[in-house]
């Protein structure tokens, strides 16, 4: 896996952005940037250059699910892998995210092991598809 992957971390809590950034750095992914909600993330993604998105669901302005739908609806971004890391843990929400085309779903609180597992799975599927 290319460790220089450019990753966008989207969460309204700066502590969680730092934690995810820290965990990703531990796994060797240091090329990360942050956005505090979907509204901030969207122009960054449109500007291009990102290879992966890690997003929260519940955020003011624009939620993670809306960001995911926007990504899938935009032809040049539609293939971008999106990992959702959220405290939202209702069955219908997971189904909604899956239907919207999420690549992985992590429920907070989570462990470093879970993050690694989900990333590995997403990368393995991407490699299969390629």
């Amino acid at each position, binding site marked *: 896996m290319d460790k220089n992957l450019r990753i966008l971390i989207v*969460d309204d*809590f700066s*502590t*969680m952005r*730092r*934690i995810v950034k*820290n*965990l990703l750095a*531990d796994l060797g992914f240091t090329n990360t940037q942050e956005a505090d909600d979907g509204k901030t993330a969207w122009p960054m993604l449109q500007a291009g250059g990102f290879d992966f998105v890690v997003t929260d*669901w*519940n*955020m*003011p*302005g*624009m*939620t993670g*699910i*809306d960001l995911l739908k926007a990504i899938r609806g935009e032809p040049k971004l539609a293939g971008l892998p999106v990992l959702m890391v959220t*405290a*939202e*843990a*209702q*069955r219908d*929400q*997971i*189904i909604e995210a*899956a239907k919207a085309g999420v690549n*992985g*779903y*992590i*429920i*907070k*609180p*989570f*462990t*470093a092991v*879970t993050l690694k597992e989900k990333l590995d799975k997403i990368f393995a599927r991407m490699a299969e598809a390629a």
Partner: protein
Amino acid sequence: MNAPMQANPVRAEQLERLREMVGLLEAGDDTAFEARFAGFVQAREQGLFVTVGRLTRELHDAMRGLSFDQHLSTLADREIPDACSRLDYVAKVTEEAAHKTLDLVEQCQKLTQDIVVATHDISAACHRAHVYAGSPYSLSGLVVSVDETRDHIVNSAAQLRERLSNLAQAQEYQDLAGQVIKRVTQLVKSVERALIDLLRAAGGGAVVQTRPPTVESAAAAEPAGGILHGPAVSGVTPTAVSQDDADALLAELGF
């Protein structure tokens, strides 16, 4: 001054009664004064009771009319206990995080001490090599010591790194607690609004019916896109699933 007073029949009557009492006092007729005075006070008190009674009835009617009683009882029966459970959850996760952080700090302190001891071992090995300089074993002894100690230090550093990552991870409580506190703050605001509406209704002023929002509707009002549940709090969000359940569900859906 007298004209507006006399224009008010109640005031005019009160003035007349007070004048009569002053007259009685001046004439020294204490018994008659006491009787008049008691009657005067009683009339005032009866007026007060009537007013309180009317206000109570109006308040009751207003509450029924605006369904305030129903909204307030929902807040009292469900929302407030939910908020208490959510705050208990905040207390629990912050306590756990604090203990976890302190445990990890203690382990890191022990590891730094190990590294200090290891460097002392190297100093001692150097010293021995110096003392036995020229002996065929001095240099190889030093190399063995340094190798062993290096492995020890590398191992300690790896353990330190792992614990520092766990320390960072332990801070996730802030996000979860923060989300819960925001929801409870919204509830407190909705209770405040409900009480203000109630006061307005009781005061007989212009009543604008604003349905007090529940935690769910308040949470939904902020982010776009449906009702959000936030962190799973036992007893409050019983339908929340675990990571394993989520994985199983996604697997069913072909993920």
